[in-house]
């Protein structure tokens, strides 16, 4: 690694984030469980398969259409547990507050967390609060950790993803990242565009009930669908091929992307998941998903193959083909 200092790209979920994990984290902590690098770790405790995960939330702005940092903090960890095939049960919440942070804002954030936890059927059972000097934290940082029990009969792992699987997305991509950008660069977004922040555990449980053979689940957060699919392709040693005209993107999100020069495949989502399952289960899965508010726009966007192992490709609208590479840093507006 040539970087002697941390730069923002190290936190954006792309190649440099990967490098950081490979070159600093794994050498220090590596063990078979961590090395799987799944969203949550599956551990066996006293005879039960337990999923365990953690995430930290530093989003700016703190409040946005469709949610706030608190809702995100609960849904994010709930979703990571759900992506492991677990029923989320208990969360911990760590708050780091900046001196001077308005009490009213804290009340609103905590209330959102209460509502999100209620919807996800999880209990917040422990936590911690720290206050730091003005300037040492940007308003508020939140860490949540969660545990849940793996649904019996499910075996979710990138290793289960094989050629012959379909790739399903649970709905429109890019809504969250675009909403966060509202106001930046003087863009005015319509009120209809909101963060998709939502707890997916209920939907996942319904899906696994009907198709326990689901191979893998993953929520495309930082780095978007592109980063997530690249990770899965590498971890499962398969190739993934997408169809450009099958990828659902709202017109408003497309508009922002065209103005600023972004690619929707690299935009973060907070209430969506990618589902990998053998093609023979696709119709059944879509049926279940379409009946649920968080899956009503679900569709197949591609398939898993044995070609171009570790890479993600895209068949374009005009019939051409190109690679969908791992992002390097976050996207920044360009004129070229």
């Amino acid at each position, binding site marked *: 690694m040539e970087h002697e200092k941390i730069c923002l790209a190290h936190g954006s979920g792309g190649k440099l984030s990967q490098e950081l994990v490979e070159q600093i984290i794994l050498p220090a902590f590596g063990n078979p469980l961590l090395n799987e690098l799944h969203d949550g770790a599956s551990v066996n405790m006293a005879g039960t398969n337990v999923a365990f995960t953690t995430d930290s939330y530093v989003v700016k702005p703190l409040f946005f259409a469709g949610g706030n940092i608190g809702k995100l903090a609960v849904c994010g960890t709930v979703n990571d547990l759900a992506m492991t095939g677990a029923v989320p049960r208990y969360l911990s919440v760590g708050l780091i507050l900046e001196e001077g942070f308005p009490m009213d804002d804290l009340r609103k954030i905590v209330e959102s967390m209460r509502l999100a936890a209620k919807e996800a059927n999880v209990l917040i059972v422990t936590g911690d609060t720290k206050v730091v000097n003005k300037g040492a934290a940007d308003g508020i940082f939140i860490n949540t950790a969660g545990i849940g029990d793996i649904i019996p009969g499910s075996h979710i792992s990138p290793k289960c993803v094989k050629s012959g699987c379909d790739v399903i997305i649970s709905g429109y991509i890019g809504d969250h990242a675009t909403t966060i950008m509202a106001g930046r660069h003087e863009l005015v977004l319509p009120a209809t565009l909101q963060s998709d922040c939502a707890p997916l555990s209920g939907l996942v449980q319904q899906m696994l009930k009907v198709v326990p053979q689901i191979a893998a689940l993953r929520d495309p957060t930082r780095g978007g669908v592109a980063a997530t699919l690249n990770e899965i392709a590498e971890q499962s040693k398969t190739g993934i091929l997408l169809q450009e005209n099958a990828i659902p993107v709202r017109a408003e999100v497309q508009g922002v992307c065209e103005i600023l020069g972004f690619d929707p495949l690299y935009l973060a989502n907070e209430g969506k998941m990618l589902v990998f399952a053998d093609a023979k289960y696709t119709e059944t899965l879509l049926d279940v998903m379409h009946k649920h508010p968080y899956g009503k726009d679900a569709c197949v966007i591609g398939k898993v193959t044995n070609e171009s192992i570790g*890479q993600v490709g895209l068949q374009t609208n005009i019939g051409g083909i190109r690679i969908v*590479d791992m992002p390097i840093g976050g996207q*920044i*507006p360009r*004129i070229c």
Partner: protein
Amino acid sequence: MGLPKNNNETKEMAQSLIREIDRLITKPVRLMEVCGTHTVAIFRAGIRQLLPPQVDLVSGPGCPVCVTPDEYIDKAIAYASRKDVILTTFGDMLRVPGSTSSLGEVKATGADIRVVYSPLESLTIAAQNPHKKIIFLAVGFETTAPTAAATVLATKKQNLTNLFLLSAHKIVPPALKVLLADPAVKIDGFLLPGHVCAITGERPFDFLPKTYHMPAVVAGFEPLDILRTIYRLAKQIHDDRPAVENEYKWIVKPDGNPAARQILSEVYEPTDAVWRGIGTIPDSGLQMKDQYSAFDAQVVLPMVTKTIAKKTACRCGEVLRGIIKPTACQLFGKDCVPEHPIGACMVSVEGSCAAWYKYGSGRYTYGT
């Protein structure tokens, strides 16, 4: 509005155009897309793999980031490192390597560098920070230069005295002339930059057919726009009737945008300019006229930097002139990759090497 984007009709239209191109071109030809945005559009649509093998498409020097010399980045970094300066820039410039560092790296150590979508955002920042000097990195070709000129006029009108531009604009036609004078460069036709032409009109490119017997077609940026352009070039080559044709009529008028050109020439005048990888090209750049020197960063805050010439196996120069494909450079994909770029072609999102790498040419083997 615009061409059909997302249905079977698009695919069928693409296939018709490709069949026609295949029919018209009977021997190997090399076409050059001048504009970096075209390079990206071509890759995003996966056009190269669809073209018949006798049609070779190479990328040209129309990437303002790629052709910006080290010296400019070094100056920008020097300005940004000053405590009384806020640097504003298009996102494209952030990761370009200078002699020893990049704006992105300097930003990570605390320099106040802000990415803007429009140069006009610099005015707001200047008004909000009266005790700081705001310096905007004014780069780009004829599409973008008028927006910088207009920004200068707006700054003057608002009586702001703390906004300055560090200009490095370039213009396209002189670079094409240099390419055509180079015996190593063998091009049979040009895809002309559609948005540059939206400003300049078609006339500045008349020299291509008139002096060089060179086919030239103004191209839009959607996949079908580009395929249609290649089809028209194929027809010109087949009929041996080079001309400047316009395949982007709904945007490009023959006389371009005279109001924009008038504002540009009010503030800027031609000057010699250094193109990274090519060298100095006479009258290929723009510098601020004397009467606007109060807004010229180089006049108000002269900055001397030491530019260290780098010894490297980087072959960006040859890539920019279309002499070699990125894959021919020994550094490509190995020592030189987007996350650790050596040459400017690999840094800019639409630099030839970055586009080739990111969109898989030479790496992605699916179905081939």
